[in-house]
């Protein structure tokens, strides 16, 4: 019996499905998303793809799912009603935040409201001091009184975050036990279990977010399992996390906040997989859709991680892939400002009404309208057979932009593209140049519906020599999820000068964390031989307030270990910040451990030998100030030996690739289009 794995990625407009056979055979489909209950689209699509491919439910060995249920609950402020219990004197920590305002000059840009209301924040008389000692124990009468108030307030979920709980969790655990006993129907999240790290505002915010999304994720997974369970795949369900790994449903139901920033993670996994397959191990992924663009830098096959995540303005400090998102996409609106400059975004036409050319009532010209006017998009073959209306786009760009700036419609449309590209170039510089990487050493992997249309221009602007367009740009994120492994993260604040004694503590605590990890993954069904361990420590020069994360795997212990770690830190610091301070004292801040459980290896299918494409038809496309007839090739006819000299357009159901004059493009054996930018003069 052939075994399959199935990835399901819920997006704003479409839910994407990728079904992969153990022999590398791949099928994709899309289903319109059902935002009121996303499980409807998920179940409908699973049913559709399995039926079409005549695959039985029993043959699906793994079901990998990226969901936006938690993300949307926070962004739309539709989380559960949360009660927060905190140390007496500190109920406002979550409302004050870091006391900075979000915009320097705009009086009306407000600090975000956290997902808890001040009348459901309860203070308890207790205190643990900075060294972990107890200076005041909570009284049980007070705990009971708080439990009563929580009940009266109708809270659905409880968050507990006490001062210094990262160093001594005793009071949080006591409260958790008591509250679970007194309020058995409620979820209780305590900060020391979710994120035992210092800085109370960020830890409280993370804990409250988890409490707010837990009941929703629990209900959602419950519905999916109920529907799928009868069909035999419920136990194979894994949920995508922000860190690029997946977790079993039991953990997702407890630590639901780990799914909140998982939206763009699939794209990065795709990038990692592409780096591994093609050998282009320095890759910048650019996932551009209708409203936003997600950018991530992969250096030598490794992505960067961040613990500085935010959602809806609130900090969420669980480890996540370091992804830079900007509000630039096909739906971004072009406008002329008061000084007469052409601007694009940040307003977006979204899916409704969408670009003007959709004919759904949109009136403001968008990036998609500009691409259509320039002949870069095919009016007949856009995103799932939608018919576009170029005349509407022309009229809108003419009235709103061209006339006001004294340009032709084509000049205005080309201007819109150049301006939106300028913003994307700036964003790519943020993940590369600003972090000490030279974009000229990278390949740009572009996907999402709009990415392949803009990629070459971005690459040329940045001096990036090569662009890679995967076979199904519109479902790349779901395709990336196919290669996910199970991953659990553990962390623990431990602040100490880096000495041999401290290093011994670091090693023994990491070993304890690894024991916990093994226990947890064994419960998920993995043997130790299927597990991978990454031990890390956050270090800084004493006196700094930002840390760098270093690996501490294996290696010597004692003085030699300290020396190796110290030298590693100096070097990393120099790479990121341009200098090293030899002789300065280093400080350990946080210990981190990631344990992965390897899911069975996956095989990627290759194209058959031969198969250069048949003739392409021509279309008038406006490039660099003039129309020219450009061959338009169908992507499904792009075979393994296909090669073309730009200009050319490659068109497929959900995306269009634009190859510029002077570029050379070819297809590799996995079906990726590889474009060498400006590598040769046009003959």
């Amino acid at each position, binding site marked *: 019996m052939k075994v399959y794995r199935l990835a399901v990625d819920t997006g704003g407009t479409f839910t994407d499905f990728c079904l992969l056979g153990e022999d590398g055979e791949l099928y994709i489909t899309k289903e319109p998303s059902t935002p009121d209950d996303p499980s409807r689209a998920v179940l409908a699509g699973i049913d559709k793809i399995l039926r079409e491919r005549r695959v039985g439910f029993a043959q699906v060995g793994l079901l990998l799912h990226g969901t936006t249920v938690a993300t949307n609950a926070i962004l739309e402020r539709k989380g559960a009603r949360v009660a927060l219990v905190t140390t007496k*004197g*500190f*109920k*406002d*920590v979550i*409302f*004050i935040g*870091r*006391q*900075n*305002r979000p915009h*320097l*000059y*705009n*009086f*009306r840009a*407000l*600090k975000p409201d956290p997902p808890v*209301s*001040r*009348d459901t924040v309860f203070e308890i008389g207790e205190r643990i*001091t*900075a060294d972990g000692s107890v200076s005041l124990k909570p009284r049980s009468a007070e705990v009971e009184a708080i439990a009563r108030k929580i009940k009266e307030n109708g809270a659905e979920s409880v968050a507990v975050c006490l*001062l*210094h709980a*990262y160093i001594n969790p005793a009071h949080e655990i006591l409260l958790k036990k008591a509250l679970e006993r007194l309020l058995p129907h409620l979820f209780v999240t305590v900060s020391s279990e979710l994120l035992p790290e*210092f*800085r*109370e*505002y960020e830890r409280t915010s993370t804990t409250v977010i988890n409490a707010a999304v837990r009941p929703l994720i629990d209900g959602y997974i419950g519905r999916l399992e109920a529907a799928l369970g009868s069909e035999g795949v419920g136990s194979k369900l894994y949920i995508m996390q922000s860190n690029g790994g997946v977790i079993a449903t039991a953990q997702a139901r407890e630590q639901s906040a780990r799914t909140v920033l998982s939206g763009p993670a699939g794209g990065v996994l795709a990038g990692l997989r592409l780096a591994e397959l093609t050998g282009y191990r320095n890759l910048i992924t650019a996932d551009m859709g209708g409203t936003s663009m997600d950018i991530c830098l992969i250096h030598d096959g490794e992505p960067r991680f961040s613990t500085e995540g935010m959602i809806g303005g609130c900090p969420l400090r669980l480890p996540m892939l370091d992804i830079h998102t900007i509000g630039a996409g096909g739906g971004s609106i072009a406008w*002329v*400002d*008061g*000084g*007469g*400059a*052409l*601007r694009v975004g940040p307003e977006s036409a979204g899916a409704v009404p969408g670009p003007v050319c959709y004919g759904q009532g949109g009136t403001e010209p968008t990036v998609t309208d500009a691409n259509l006017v320039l002949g870069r998009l095919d009016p007949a073959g856009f995103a799932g057979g939608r018919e576009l209306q170029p005349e509407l786009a022309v009229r809108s760009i003419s009235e709103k932009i061209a006339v006001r*700036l004294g340009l032709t419609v084509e*000049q205005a449309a*080309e*201007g819109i593209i*150049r*301006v939106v590209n*300028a*913003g994307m*170039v*700036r964003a790519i*510089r943020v993940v590369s*140049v*600003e972090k000490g990487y030279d974009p000229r050493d990278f390949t740009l992997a572009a996907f999402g519906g709009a990415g392949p249309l803009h990629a070459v221009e971005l690459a040329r602007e940045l001096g990036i020599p090569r662009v890679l367009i995967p076979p199904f740009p519109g479902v790349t994120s779901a395709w990336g999820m196919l290669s996910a492994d199970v991953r659990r993260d553990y962390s623990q604040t431990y*602040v100490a000068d880096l000495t041999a004694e401290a290093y011994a503590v670091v090693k023994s605590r990491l070993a304890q964390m690894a024991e916990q990890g093994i226990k947890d993954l064994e419960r998920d069904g993995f043997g130790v031989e299927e597990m991978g361990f990454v031990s890390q420590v956050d270090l800084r020069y004493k*006196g*700094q*307030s*930002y840390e760098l994360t270093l690996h501490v795997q294996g290696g010597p212990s004692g003085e030699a270990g300290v020396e190796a770690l110290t030298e590693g830190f100096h070097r990393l610091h120099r790479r*990121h*910040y*341009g*200098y090293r301070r030899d002789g300065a004292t280093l400080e350990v801040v946080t210990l981190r451990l990631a344990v992965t459980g390897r899911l069975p290896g996956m095989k990627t299918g290759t194209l058959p030998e031969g198969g250069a494409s048949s003739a392409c038809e021509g279309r008038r496309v406006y490039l660099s100030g003039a129309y020219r007839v450009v061959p338009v090739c169908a992507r499904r006819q792009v075979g393994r030996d296909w090669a073309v000299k730009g200009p050319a357009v490659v068109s497929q159901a959900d995306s269009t690739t634009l190859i510029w004059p002077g570029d050379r493009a070819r297809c590799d054996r996995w079906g990726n289009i590889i474009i060498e930018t400006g590598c040769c003069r046009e003959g």
Partner: protein
Amino acid sequence: MRVDPVTLEVLRNALQSAAEEMGVTLTRTAHSPNIKDRRDCSTAVYTPAGELVAQAEHIPLHLGLMPAVVKKVLEYYPVENLEPGDAVIINDPYISGSHLPDVCIISPVFVGDAPVAIVANLAHHVDVGGVAPGSMSTTATEIFQEGIRIPPVKISSGGRLNRDLLRVLACNVRTADEFYGDIHAQLSANEVGGRTVKELAEKWGTKTLQFYMREIIDYAERRFRAALRTIPRGTYRFSDYLEGDGITGDLITIAAGVEINDVGVRVDFTGTSPQVKGPVNATRGVTLACVYFAVKAVADPDLPSSEGIARVVEVITPHGSLVNPVFPAPVAHANINTAQRIADVILGALSQAVPGRVTAAGTGSMSNFTIGGRDARGRYYSYVETYGGGQGAKQGQDGMDGVHVNMTNTRNTPVEVIEMNYPLLVERYGLVRDSGGPGEFRGGAGLVREITLLEDAAVSVSTERNAVKPWGLEGGHSGRNSGCSIKMPGGAVEQATGKFTRELPKGATIILETAGGGGFGSPFARAPEAVRRDVKNGLVSSNAAFEEYGVALNEALEVVTEVRSKKSDV
């Protein structure tokens, strides 16, 4: 050359990118906490004539400093006399600048022999000498007590660092290591910016780049003028007060007339008090920053910072006044309190023209709190933090609770970090009930921090709005004033003033409350549901709901009566 609006936007993005990359280099490589954590620094790109083209500022105070400084320096070192690899350093507030810790470094950018641009950055050093650590004495009476003054001099010539000069400077500051580190960070920021601008010049051609640099400034000017046309013509006057200069508690007047005319804005500070003895005098650069901040925030908050702003706003600062003092008046503390008040005065004046686009007065001070001494192991420590408070309310929106307003936006220090690093116990950190000025839209709540000393220490507080409350607008009431009290180890409580420095014993608790923001519109017009929500959330007391808003609530917090007229009718 004809202006292409697309190239304009593309190059504006590229030059802004260059300024921001300089900023990242500077904050990442600096050693002083002021620069790397609080981001008290700015970076910018200029035309060869010293006109500001693009700026990355992290706090609004630098808005007025950056446009002026390069032009001043070019008076000493004309660009035609500069060479590749040169860099000029300056911190003298009496030539250009705010106070001595703000050190600026300026570097020309060349393509071949021709200067194509200038890049510069300004950063707040942790110490530049003077009588007090941190160079921020509250009682200085001459600038000589505030630290070392550096006129425009070359710190690097043809790429060679002037080590003699650096040594002279370093031996006049308390923290020489940080000083060297910060200077290197500032030089490398300019190097990064210079490289990017050079690449742009090579890519687009020097002529095109320079044409569009000037065009970016013209663009900002056009855009700003267009935005100002939405403000009614007229002259609007306002005045407000500072509560003493640190030497005496006498009120100091800041008065301004803001004239919106056909070509722009003219602000005249005639009527402002003469300069004072203590260090709260604001140099013209600081005053300009406050004016630019207020006008930009009201007219076009997203306006890119450039020379274009300066072309539209004319500012008259009487010689020898608080807002343009004469050498050698001390100036270090103008940034903490005076700057906040100047911004309030301009906003107050503009409120008469466009009340719906201005906020009522906010907390009105950066509320500086310093505790210094030795910990149990005898090591010297110094805790320094600035506290926010209530934002003023505005048309249609309550003020934010517990934020920095006007000229600063630095972050707080987490309680857990304070207790980990200093012999201090934080007893409370929260919002102050009933501190937000009542109004149809409520002023933001002030902050309270209660800190107990675990060892004897020297405590210094500098705040404002202790006596003169933050004003409301359009019938909104003022916010509650700031206050400070000290609970001594025996339990006796002493009221303290808004500005003091004193030695306190182990076990003493200092309670500092910052002011709330003023309200907007009559409190009687506030929706009863909004009043009820504030009471439910504990930010307004039931008593205040009735007394101030005329809304009576029962125990279940249901609205039982609304008294929507004068209190005397009740």
